[in-house]
């Protein structure tokens, strides 16, 4: 679900400029699965899919899979269009050391939103 966050062909080079001093690892959880994302100088270098035995990461974003699916629609519905909107609905939890996330909030929002399809598919 989140494997395609790995940078290919510098398609997110503009986004990386917004986080050019950021080196971190964070976990995305869909409850049933986990994705460990490694970022170096604002570039996603690696995404590992769980299960993990002893994962090491700085912070973790947890939401049920169906909520991530709603977030990743071409045009998400109100309340699913932003990670803070999901936080507000209490369907997403932020955990750990949130400094890398909050100091690069727009970067992380746009990074996750970059997985949305450019055009609408039949979403039903």
């Amino acid at each position: 679900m989140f494997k395609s966050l790995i940078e290919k062909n510098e398609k997110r080079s503009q986004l990386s400029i917004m986080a050019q001093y950021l080196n971190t690892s964070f976990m995305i959880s869909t409850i049933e699965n986990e994705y460990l994302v490694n970022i170096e100088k604002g570039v996603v270098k690696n995404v590992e899919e769980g299960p993990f035995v002893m994962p090491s990461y700085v912070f973790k974003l947890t939401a049920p899979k169906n909520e991530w699916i709603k977030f990743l629609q071409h045009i998400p519905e109100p309340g699913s269009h932003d990670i803070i909107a999901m936080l507000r609905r209490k369907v997403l939890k932020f955990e750990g050391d949130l400094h890398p996330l909050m100091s690069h909030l727009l970067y992380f929002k746009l990074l996750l939103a970059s997985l949305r399809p450019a055009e609408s598919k039949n979403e039903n």
Partner: protein
Amino acid sequence: MKIEKEPISGQYGKFKIDGIDFRIYWEEAGQGIPLVCLHTAGSDGRQYRALLNDKKILKKFRVIVFDMPWHGKSSPPENAKVGNYKLSTDFYISQIMSFINGLELVKPVVMGCSIGGRIILHLAINFPDKFRALIGLQSAGHLDPYYDISWLHRQDVHGGEVCGGIAYGLMAPTSPESDKFETMWHYMQGGPGIFKGDLFFYKFDGNIGNEIKKIDNSKCPIYLLTGEYDYSATPEETKSLADTIGIEMIKMKNVGHFPMSENPKEFLKYLHPVLNKIS
């Protein structure tokens, strides 16, 4: 080269607010019924740039937008210190009333968004006879904190970056990217701790509770409009407010928390009929 001039003029003036001198900047355009517009927390009057350029509105209304003290081109007071700013309900009311009295506006319409959408409720409770009408954009009677606002002002996080990131998410994915960017940019230009200081009013001091029942719509007509993508003041919360006051709310499609700035074209479709009723 010929430039495309806008009909807006800007001015500075000294206003006494609660006994203290403040240098305030405001912009205005049009003539007729005074329409004072209040910007959101942590931003400034540029949010109303489309209204100040809307020919239809300017024929009947004198649109006036001031930057709150500490915001935009308005100054902080003398002896100000970084980190001390906290917007209280009383100070917010005082600055609005000082501005209106200073410009000798008679029975203006006041329209506010977000914190402005909250303060118009306080105006309706305290001074219903002073206004021709009140318009609340993204109004809610109270807001329980849903994220830790200390992130908005700490020295190890760039305030402009984090405030912009917060504001960006409050807009609709369907709003034009250029208007969304400009709206976010205003947040990125705010002073340290100002957005957070405004939220003291929005999330704590300005919560209304049962006082809302004191609003009498027959004394001063109130109009409430809320964008469907707003998760700060949700349409459901505005609806509950409207039900208590006994009025209909208008839910705006395809906009979020900053209708007048993030998608002016869409917003004006909803605002024009309201202003027609008022005029």
